[in-house]
């Protein structure tokens, strides 16, 4: 479904992503783990089109999209929940969801919202509320719900557990599994490697801009090196 080949991304002179190649197949949950600053967000933003690679290609559903503007990638079914959520704080919950459906050109916003509300009943209660007044957990739900409004085929999530209490982290991860069962392919970026490896089928380990390990998520979580570096022993 998604193929990334030999991606090199720079911030000026900083070489943030160094020749990354990865693949996500339809129906999978794939996770990209690594320490802070490893280049996870840079990789996701290059796939979603917010950043341009210096070299390398991104192929989605069999077509090269390396030079496609970000807003057109959404139309093709590639959505991203950005790091730090970045919901529209001055807009209401409902307006945020409407913006999520922007690429659908108004087709069936209501039924999309119903689906999001089934997944996150809290958002329904608060749909007239200004998003900036939501709690951190609710904001994460909104960010995820908003991305689902575009009916993505592949959903990329950048650290959805960041800053959340453990109970909320559990809830967010079970929702991710639920979304995947409902047919959305997932590419999940996390610093919380333990949680990520527990829901993913496959994983890539990123270190200073390079993939240093990859494979079956369960096998990786049993790997001594991974345990030492990312699972706290």
């Amino acid at each position, binding site marked *: 479904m998604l193929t990334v080949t030999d991606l090199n991304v720079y911030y000026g002179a900083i070489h943030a992503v160094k020749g990354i190649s990865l693949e996500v197949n339809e129906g999978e949950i794939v996770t990209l783990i690594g320490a802070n600053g490893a280049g996870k967000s840079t990789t996701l933003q290059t796939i*979603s*089109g*917010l950043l341009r690679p210096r070299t390398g290609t991104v192929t989605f559903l069999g077509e090269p999209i390396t030079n496609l*503007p*970000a*807003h*057109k990638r*959404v*139309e093709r079914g590639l*959505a*991203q929940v*950005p790091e730090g959520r*970045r*919901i*529209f*704080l*001055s*807009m209401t919950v409902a*307006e945020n969801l*409407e*913006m*999520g459906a*922007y*690429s659908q050109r*108004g087709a069936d916003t209501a039924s999309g919202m119903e689906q999001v509300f089934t997944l996150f009943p809290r958002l329904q209660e608060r749909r007239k509320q200004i998003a*900036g007044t*939501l*709690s*951190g957990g609710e*904001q994460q739900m909104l960010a995820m719900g*908003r*991305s689902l409004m*575009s009916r993505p085929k592949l959903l990329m999530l950048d650290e959805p557990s960041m*800053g959340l209490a453990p109970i909320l982290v559990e809830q967010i991860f079970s929702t991710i599994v639920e979304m995947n069962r409902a047919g959305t392919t997932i590419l999940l970026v996390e610093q919380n490697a333990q949680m990520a490896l527990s829901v993913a089928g496959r994983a890539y380990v990123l270190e200073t801009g390079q993939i240093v390990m990859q494979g079956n998520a369960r096998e990786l979580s049993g790997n001594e090196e991974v345990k030492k570096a990312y699972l706290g022993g």
Partner: protein
Amino acid sequence: MSFLSHLISGISLGSIYAIIALGYTMVYGIAKMLNFAHGDVIMVGAYSCFFLMSRFHLPVIVGVVAAMLVCTLLGVTIERLAYKPLRAAPALAVLITAIGVSYFLQNAALLLWTSNPKVFPSIAGNTSIKLLGGQLSISPTALLSIASCIVIMVALTWFTSSTRMGKAMRACSEDKGAAQLMGINVNVTISMVFAIGSALAAIAGILLCSAYPTLTPTTGSMPGIKAFTAAVFGGIGSIPGAMIGGILLGIIEIFGKAYISTQLSDAIVFLVLIIVLLVRPAGILGKTVQEKV
């Protein structure tokens, strides 16, 4: 009675400032830049209308609509050619470019229309409306300005709160990256804002010259600066703020002229701005959104 009449003049001048300030504030909101050339777009709008009406004897409404079209095209072109290539550039480079565009427009107008002042006929006519047994007289231009301002305010409020494009505009103003991830074409949205702001500038230019009939290539400068002040005064980036700021500025200016000093009225306007910004650095309605973790 003179108090009431000054108040009406103030609101009417303030309405024109408000319409101009909307252009500044909307562009600032989305592009985070001060479009210094906005005042000169006003001047181009007034000249276009004047030229079409005096040369071709077109009806007022045709002149106004044509001037709006000219300014829309001009605004979008300026954005595309001068500002878009500088999206990622430092704010100072953008500001200097905007000042350059401003001088370019003034000098182009000088070439096209010379420095001889044109006498702009009021598009609202000259028959004053007498109220309270003839004690209070209101110029039709004043009424038209106030009415235009109200209509524009209502229309813009509706546009930004209820239309897909308007909401996309707010989304882009808040976070361009996130807006792109929603499938919003940020470039198109920014062009749209320049188009709206410039069309409003045309209306403001025509109203301004209807109230103060001398039209020269520098006609837009001072009202432009004052409207910018009004936008900052009300809270730059805020649409209701531009409205309130513009109207208050008009009232302060006219009252300053009437009761304090004609020469000092501009100084008073800017003094009030400085005081407001000392007390409320973000302006009257300016807000600082706090991020939640």
